[in-house]
């Protein structure tokens, strides 16, 4: 059977042409988007970075969906299913439970942010706790955690290019060519039109993705003889994988804790990321956030079906071999598409994956750049920066963030890309107490929160570093680690968060006992309920320093 062939020799001309045509189309759209809804002045941070804060339910749905439908969905999760089986399916409970959680706290964040002109989570923390230190910690964490998440997108684009035949194994430069091309594409196109470009492109992207997904989940199972056969093939092949930790079709007793903690940790972390918060703040009123929480699970359904592409790759006997000649599970889905689709449709599918990685990567880097400009640059380098200056700094910073992401790709293990995102989760989750609990109560002392954050960050980083991948011998090899007290493995982000909370509570009790100054709260209870049309809710309020 022709199904079991490896990568095609040379470049697939038809597929490449289709990809290029779609890319050009999308790029033109992106630049045209700069004039979409005619922003008064794109040179201000609110316009470049938040799209003027005027997105309604529909646009927000696409924009938030863009955060989910990324290389994470198309490359990393199916790759984990392909390599390890059921554990990779944790992405489904993760993307289900995230919305009820979001439903509860994000409207409060929307309200308080709009009343005080907060653009970033660090702005909020600054106003709530009157603490520059805590605000800086939140900002730095946001920027740091975003980098590996962007790195995941780069790996996704790279996977597509690699399977398509871009680059070669003949020398170092050529074997990294797919990655370099991926980076250049991303950098070139975020620069000009800020958040409007990704919002506009998200429509095209989602349209493409829906077509590809629908074709993939109907046509491929049909070709492979139905879902029953696909699951049977996975059940047979997973335990026999030539790796140190074989997979399984149904989660085993040892996998339950990792499964549940990965899902919960990822769900709690998702809306701590600056890019998710940016998307939420860009909405018109607080109920857009809620309506979306009810609409977005539609994405989770498709995410689950896409995850199963990993099993379809097993059933189709795909052998994903990288340019370096080693097996690379990240290539499983692109390779599956190339093996089973006609060339032109392979092109459409690859364009969908690549653009699907590009859009969120752009949104992420813009959000991280905003965070830097407002909470680090303006705070510590140039107090009186005017809006045009801020937008200029953000643009440069968005490039630097992408360079940081590139470093992650070069230095960490690229064969399990999902670990990038999970590493980011370990860090970003440590801002949870300051942001989410801060939305409800100011009981936690600001210094205690800072201490808890420091402990959580250090613990999480050290433990994550200690996890060595048994097959590739690289550090940061696993997002889970043994929790001694319960004798089970769990997602490091959650363990670190628990530690973080313990430190915060103990330190708060002590600091309150010694009457350490708690600072002034710049927000009032009423702020957390404010809605569009209320007094002092304005579309573009600038922070008064």
């Amino acid at each position: 059977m022709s199904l079991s062939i490896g990568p095609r020799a040379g470049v697939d001309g038809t597929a490449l042409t289709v990809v290029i045509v779609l890319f050009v189309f999308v790029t033109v759209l992106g630049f045209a988007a700069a004039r979409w809804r005619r922003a008064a002045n794109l040179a201000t941070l609110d316009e470049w970075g938040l799209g003027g804060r005027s997105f309604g339910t529909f646009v927000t749905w696409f924009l938030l969906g863009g955060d989910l439908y990324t290389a994470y969905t198309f490359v990393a999760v199916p790759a984990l299913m392909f390599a390890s089986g059921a554990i990779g399916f944790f992405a489904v409970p993760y993307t289900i439970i995230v919305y009820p959680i979001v439903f509860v706290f994000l409207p409060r964040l929307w309200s308080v942010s709009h009343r005080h002109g907060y653009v970033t989570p660090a702005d909020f923390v600054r106003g709530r706790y009157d603490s520059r230190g805590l605000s800086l910690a939140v900002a730095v964490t946001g920027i740091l955690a975003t980098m590996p998440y962007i790195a995941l997108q780069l790996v996704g684009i790279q996977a597509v290019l690699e399977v398509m035949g871009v680059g070669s194994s003949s020398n170092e430069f050529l074997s990294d060519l797919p990655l370099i091309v991926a980076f250049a594409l991303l950098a070139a196109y975020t620069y000009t039109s800020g958040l409007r470009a990704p919002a506009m492109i998200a429509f095209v992207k989602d349209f493409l993705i829906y077509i590809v997904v629908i074709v993939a989940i109907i046509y491929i199972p049909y070709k492979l003889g139905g879902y029953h056969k696909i699951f049977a093939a996975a059940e047979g092949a997973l335990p026999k994988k030539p790796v140190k930790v074989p997979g399984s079709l149904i989660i085993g007793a040892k996998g339950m804790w990792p499964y549940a903690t990965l899902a919960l940790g990822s769900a709690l972390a998702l809306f701590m990321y600056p890019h998710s918060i940016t998307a939420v703040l860009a909405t018109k009123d607080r109920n857009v956030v809620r309506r979306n929480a009810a609409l977005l699970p539609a994405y989770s359904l498709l995410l689950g079906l896409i995850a199963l592409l990993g099993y379809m790759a097993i059933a189709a006997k795909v052998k994903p071999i990288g340019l370096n000649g080693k097996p690379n599970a990240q290539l499983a889905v692109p390779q599956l598409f190339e093996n089973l689709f006609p060339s032109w449709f392979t092109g459409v599918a690859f364009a969908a994956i690549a653009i699907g990685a590009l859009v969120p990567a752009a949104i992420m880097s813009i959000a991280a750049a905003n965070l830097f400009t407002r909470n680090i640059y303006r705070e510590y380098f140039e107090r009186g920066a005017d809006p045009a200056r801020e937008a200029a700094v953000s643009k440069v910073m968005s490039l630097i963030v992408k360079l940081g992401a590139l470093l992650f790709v070069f230095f960490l293990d690229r064969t399990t890309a999902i670990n990038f995102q999970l590493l980011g989760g370990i860090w970003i989750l440590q801002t949870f107490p300051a942001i989410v609990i801060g939305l409800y109560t100011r009981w936690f002392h600001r210094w205690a929160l800072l201490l808890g954050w420091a402990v959580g960050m250090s613990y999480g980083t050290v433990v994550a570093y200690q996890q060595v991948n048994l097959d590739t011998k690289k550090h940061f090899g696993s997002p889970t680690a043994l929790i001694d007290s319960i004798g089970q493995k769990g997602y490091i982000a959650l363990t670190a968060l628990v530690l973080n909370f313990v430190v915060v509570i103990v330190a708060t009790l002590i600091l309150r006992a010694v009457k350490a100054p708690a600072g002034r709260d710049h927000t009032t209870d009423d702020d957390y309920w404010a809605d569009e049309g209320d007094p002092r809710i304005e579309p573009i309020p600038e922070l008064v320093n």
Partner: protein
Amino acid sequence: MRRMVRRSVSPDMGSPELGSAATNVLVAVVVIIPLVALLWVPFYAKKAPELFGFPFFYWYQFLWVFITAALTFVAYLFVRRNDIDRRDERQVDRDGGHRR
């Protein structure tokens, strides 16, 4: 831009404060049910019964996509009404405070 106050006080919920408490409970339930159903892995980590070729482990989780979306939507309807109540309450306070 004065609002109609009467509209928001629904007969089944009594005063806005009562409505608010009921809404909070409902929202809490909506959050907790999917969390328990999906994070209690031993409950669904099995192969049988299969549905359309999908092992239980998989279709069970797919099912919760729909259940959670429905629950969240119901909560949205309740919360929206509650928000209107709150806003009207404040509107009344303000209007009472300094009449134009």
